[in-house]
Each structure stands twice: as C-alpha cells, then as structure tokens.
C-alpha cells in the first residue's frame, strides 16, 4: 500500500515535470534557455517515471529492464544536451543577452 502511494507520487511528479519542460521548450525566448529547460526536466522526469514504474513492477525482469533504460537515459540525456550546446556555440549561435549598458534591450 505504501509502495503503491510512493509509486503514484513518483509517476505524478514525473508527469508534471514533463509538462513543465514542454512549456519551457515552447515559451522560452532563446535556444540556450530552451535547452536548459528541456535538458534539466528531461532527465529528472524520466528518472521519476521509471522509478514509479519500477515500484509498481516489484522485483522482476521488468524492473531490470527499467533499470537498464534508467542507466542509459542517465548517461545519454546530459551527453546529448552537452553535444547540442557545444555544436550550437561552435557554429556561432550567440546567447541572447537582454541587458546592455544597464538598459534593457528588446
């Protein structure tokens, strides 16, 4: 019963974080801020959802597969974000800076 409640909390938090990341990638003004929103929420929401599913499954083969997906996403999601930011920076995409000489730039 307690494990059930814990897993629902994890799944719910993961879904909410996912939606927050979606809103972030949709509404932020600049590529780097969008990548920031997407990269951070992606990893945490994936972890929470997989953890919730693992708690539902109990100790079985499904949990092992979920752990494999978990480990793989844990390493590749930040790597992909880093590669994206690195490629964008090297190709000359400048981060948007709003303040110039203390005055707000549109």
């Amino acid at each position, binding site marked *: 019963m307690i494990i059930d409640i814990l897993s*629902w909390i994890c*799944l*719910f938090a*993961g*879904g*909410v974080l*996912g*939606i927050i*990341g*979606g*809103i972030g*990638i*949709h509404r932020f003004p600049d*590529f780097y801020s*969008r*990548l920031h929103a*997407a990269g951070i929420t*992606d990893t945490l*929401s*994936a972890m929470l*959802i*997989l953890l*919730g*599913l693992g708690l*539902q*499954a109990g100790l*079985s*083969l*499904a949990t092992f*597969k*979920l752990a*494999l*997906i978990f480990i*793989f*996403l844990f390493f*590749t*999601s930040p*790597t*992909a*974000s880093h*590669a*994206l930011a690195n*490629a*964008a920076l*090297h*190709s000359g*995409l400048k981060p948007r800076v709003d303040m110039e000489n203390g005055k707000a730039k549109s």
Partner: protein
Amino acid sequence: MFIAVSLAILITMGLALARALMGPTTYDRIAAVNMFGTKTVLLIAVLAFLSGRTDLLDIALVYALINFMGVVAALKLVTQGDFHSSVKDRTKKAETE
C-alpha cells in the same frame, strides 16, 4: 492513473513537436526532437504497464539507443556537412584555413 501519466507525456510531446515545427534555428529543432524521443521512450514504458505486456520494455530500450544515435548523427551532419569526416580532418581543415 497510468492513463493520466501517459496523457501528461503526450501533452509534453505535443509541445516539443510544436517547437520542432516552429524552431527558428536547426539546433532548436534537434533539441525538440531529442526531447520528443526521450518522451517516446517513457510513453512506451508506461504503455507497457498500461496494457500489462511488459515485453514492450525491450522496444523502449531499443528506442532509447536509436534516439541517442540519431541525435548525435544529425548534429554531426549539421555541423560538418557529412557523416564520414573525423576530428583529425576537421582540425586539418581549420589549420589550412
């Protein structure tokens, strides 16, 4: 409850797809597609539990692998213009320039 989680993931996928279609730069599109792929993995995992067929988790695992490869390959194609040039070629080209 699994249905609520899968709906939340679907909403996120819709928002990411909107950014992939709007995105002013190519990198915006690649970032959105990367997010879309990660959410697809999660959606497959949740659907496996929703339908009670946990064999679907294998497909989620394979999708996670292919998604990462695809993003890195797309980045390489965008930044270098081809798939086959190595880092050594790139530094040589930079030196001659």
